[in-house]
């Protein structure tokens, strides 16, 4: 793992102005990302997805993003102009979302969509785009790339759809991938197969990954480092290997309330939410 | 109950009865509706229509049926604000009395069309199979007729008159509502809450009445308000052809029809009722748009 940070986030805030008052979706989140797999885990409403979107400037209209620093590879993302952001999205930082049913264009063939993603960030010919696309489909372990190239999104399974998404997001050769619940809609075996593909590609290319999920076990077994979020803030940060020794009561609560295959059939420990956790922690870890 | 207490009751966190919960929902929908100025304009127009119709005996100078041949075709002025028609009757008064007829038409058509359309639509959509096929073919038949032609045919068979015109309009208007209700029913029928109702042993009739139909109401009501304009215009058209309200009834369409020969020199005779139709149709359209924005299910409306 290299020492240089690809992404630096310092005191990120995302606030939505609603008719009933401001809602703080993200309250002072800070972290650095190197060439590693960073997991952000939290329940619904924890702000994990909002964090991912804020980095790419994809916060929904009505949301205000503020931070002390939001820097990718030396470029300031907060004040970047549209042209710079367009270059970075896809070419520098890419995003994989949850359900390929909704994130792939249903009226374009798979091949065309991936080519488009390629051509946006390079000035190569169409022939080169096609060659790269097929190469990418092979790289994500799709067995019949020619057939899938011509297929429409609804003709492929969920797992294959996500692999296509990965291909599409990797083809412009970004340095960072933000994956927002990329496997939540998939069966457990397919989930792991898709993650294996992602894992291999990230290692090969020396990329950074931000993996956002609600699945603590999955993140613990897949990622290198973990951020646990609650109420828009980071409760705890630890190495994945050290998760069992986590100290924050929220993390412990999450760990303890999970049913386990090797557990007893006693009552599950119920998470007791302490309102103190929601208090602004100022500069966080 | 003071206004403040009422507002408190309507915004209370915990409703204490079904009635209170319902009122709260309506109130919240109203607050959402109020935020759209155009929709409020529509509501104002329609409310004005209703008020004018109700207060007709008190706001008109005459009963608008008396002839005054010496004062015919007077232009708009201080004595007759919108002028007089070819028989010397005050046009403003006739328009005001005519609002009653407009409301009568619109109300009667709605009462006929909504229940029939809903019933046929939810049955076809929920039950499916041959019931769906038969009911939809029936709907298609009625949908295929151009409104005016069918209306003319009916009136030819039944004789001219306002009620027959209303019947004719109703018969040509219900089909799209059945389609809308059917489309909603199709979407809903595999929902978990319907399955839950079946799991409880609720009869098909019960499911249609208490579960499916209430969810179709919003779309149907929005469609109804948007169709109002068309209904009024059809009635006006029938009146124009002499097939609807018969003279001397001050129905707006009939007024345009009888007045059209004066369009060039005494423009106000057909134009004023025309403007009335325009304003009311616009009002219903704006209201319908506003309702559609409010009835988004996520806002709980």
């Amino acid at each position: 793992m290299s020492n240089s940070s690809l992404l630096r986030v310092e005191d990120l805030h995302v606030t939505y102005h609603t008719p009933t008052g401001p809602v703080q979706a993200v309250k002072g989140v800070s972290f650095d990302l190197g060439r590693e797999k960073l997991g952000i885990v939290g329940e619904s409403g924890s702000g994990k997805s909002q964090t991912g979107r804020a980095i790419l400037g994809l916060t929904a209209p009505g949301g205000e993003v503020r931070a002390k620093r939001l820097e990718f590879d030396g470029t300031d993302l907060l004040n970047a102009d549209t042209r710079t952001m367009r270059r970075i999205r896809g070419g520098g930082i890419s995003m994989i979302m949850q359900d390929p049913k909704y994130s792939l264009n249903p009226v374009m063939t798979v091949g065309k969509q991936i080519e488009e993603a390629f051509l946006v960030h390079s000035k190569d010919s169409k022939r080169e785009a096609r060659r790269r696309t097929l190469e990418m489909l092979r790289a994500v372990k799709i067995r019949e790339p020619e057939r899938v190239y011509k297929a429409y999104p609804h003709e492929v399974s969920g797992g294959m759809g996500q692999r296509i998404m990965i291909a599409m997001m990797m083809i412009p050769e970004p340095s960072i991938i933000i994956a927002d619940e990329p496997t939540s809609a998939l069966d457990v075996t397919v989930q792991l197969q898709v993650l294996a593909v992602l894992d291999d590609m990230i290692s090969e290319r020396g990329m950074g990954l931000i993996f956002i999920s609600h699945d603590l076990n999955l993140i613990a077994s897949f990622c290198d480092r973990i951020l646990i979020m609650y109420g828009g803030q980071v409760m705890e940060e630890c190495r994945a290997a050290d998760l069992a020794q986590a100290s924050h009561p929220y993390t412990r609560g999450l760990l303890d309330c999970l049913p386990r295959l090797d557990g007893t059939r006693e009552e599950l420990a119920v998470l007791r939410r302490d309102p103190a956790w929601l208090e602004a922690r100022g500069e966080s870890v | 109950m003071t206004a403040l207490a009422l507002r408190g009751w309507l915004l209370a966190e915990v409703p204490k009865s079904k009635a209170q919960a319902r009122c709260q929902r309506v109130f919240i929908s109203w607050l959402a509706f109020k935020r759209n100025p155009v929709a409020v304009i529509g509501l104002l127009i329609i409310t004005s229509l209703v008020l004018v119709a109700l207060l007709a005996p008190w706001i008109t100078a005459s009963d608008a049926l008396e002839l005054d041949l010496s004062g015919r075709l007077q232009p708009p002025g201080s004595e007759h604000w919108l002028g007089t028609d070819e028989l010397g009757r005050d046009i403003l008064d006739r328009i005001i009395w005519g609002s009653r007829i407009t409301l009568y038409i619109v109300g009667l058509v709605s009462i006929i069309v909504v229940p029939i359309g809903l019933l046929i639509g939810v049955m076809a959509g929920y039950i499916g199979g041959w019931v769906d096929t038969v009911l939809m073919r029936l709907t298609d038949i009625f949908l295929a007729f151009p409104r005016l032609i069918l209306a003319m045919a009916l009136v030819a068979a039944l004789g001219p008159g306002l009620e027959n015109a209303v019947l004719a309009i109703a018969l040509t208007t219900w089909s799209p509502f059945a389609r809308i209700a059917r489309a909603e029913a199709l979407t809903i029928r595999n929902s978990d809450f319907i399955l839950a109702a079946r799991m409880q042993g609720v009869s098909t009739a019960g499911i249609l009445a208490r579960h499916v139909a209430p969810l179709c109401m919003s779309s149907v009501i929005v469609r109804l308000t948007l169709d109002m304009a068309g209904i009024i215009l059809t009635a006006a058209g029938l009146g124009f052809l002499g097939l609807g309200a018969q003279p001397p009834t001050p129905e707006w369409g009939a007024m345009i029809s009888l007045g059209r020969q004066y369009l060039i020199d005494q423009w106000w005779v057909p134009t004023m009722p025309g403007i009335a139709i325009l304003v009311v149709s616009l009002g219903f359209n704006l209201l319908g748009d506003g309702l559609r924005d409010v009835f988004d299910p996520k806002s709980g409306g």
Partner: protein
Amino acid sequence: MIDIRDLDVVFGHGKQAFHAVRQVSLAVEAGQSFGLVGESGSGKTTVLRALAGLLDRVATVSGVMTVADETLQEQRSKSFRRRVQMVFQDPYGSLHPRHTVDTIMSEPARVHRLDRIEERVVSALEEVGLDASFRFRYPHQISGGQRQRVSVARALITDPDIVLLDEPTSALDVSVQAEVLNLLMRLKREHGLTYVLVSHNLAVVAHMCETLSVMQNGEIVETMSVQQLREHSSTMPYTQQLLTASLGYDRAAIDAFEEFGQ
């Protein structure tokens, strides 16, 4: 209590026929919790819905199903509908959006002409940990976990013997899941219920059930006790793979995954 023999469920006809469930047989004793585990498309939810009698217009169901000594006919009897209830997966979809909690819960009582409806509603709400203030709220005004509790409360109104659970906690946050699972366990003990639980989550099934069947492609691959599952004493490769996958990401293990395709 529940006996299913050679259940077959086919959707559609002729060329487009889809055989969702093939020759499934299982038995559940009174007071037991039986788990049906599988991935999507395995047919587990279809089996549950076939048992519930919810497939009558959309699929062809054959086989013999017996519940409490009553052989199930195509149209379920009133007594079946009283003693067998179901909790659905999606807390956002299983409650009618325009009905208050009170209406939702009174409905089964009305259908079965039970007495003291209001009392039953309030007491069922209390049993699931919701106080009476929830009675007149609409579903969109309460949280996902609370909706699931309402779903469970609704299932209790008719004092059933059997509750069918279709992924009851899959759509809930982990902390809320724990509460709901605890609730279900407690209610089972207090009311002597029989559960059939469908889930894709082996840990949940291991926690809640004594026996389970693993389904794949519409068929039962293996039926075993949860004890056997924990001891990894399964003989079927599919079950073993499912078990491995449930333990988390293991790069080496994934390479060994087989495709158990159609």
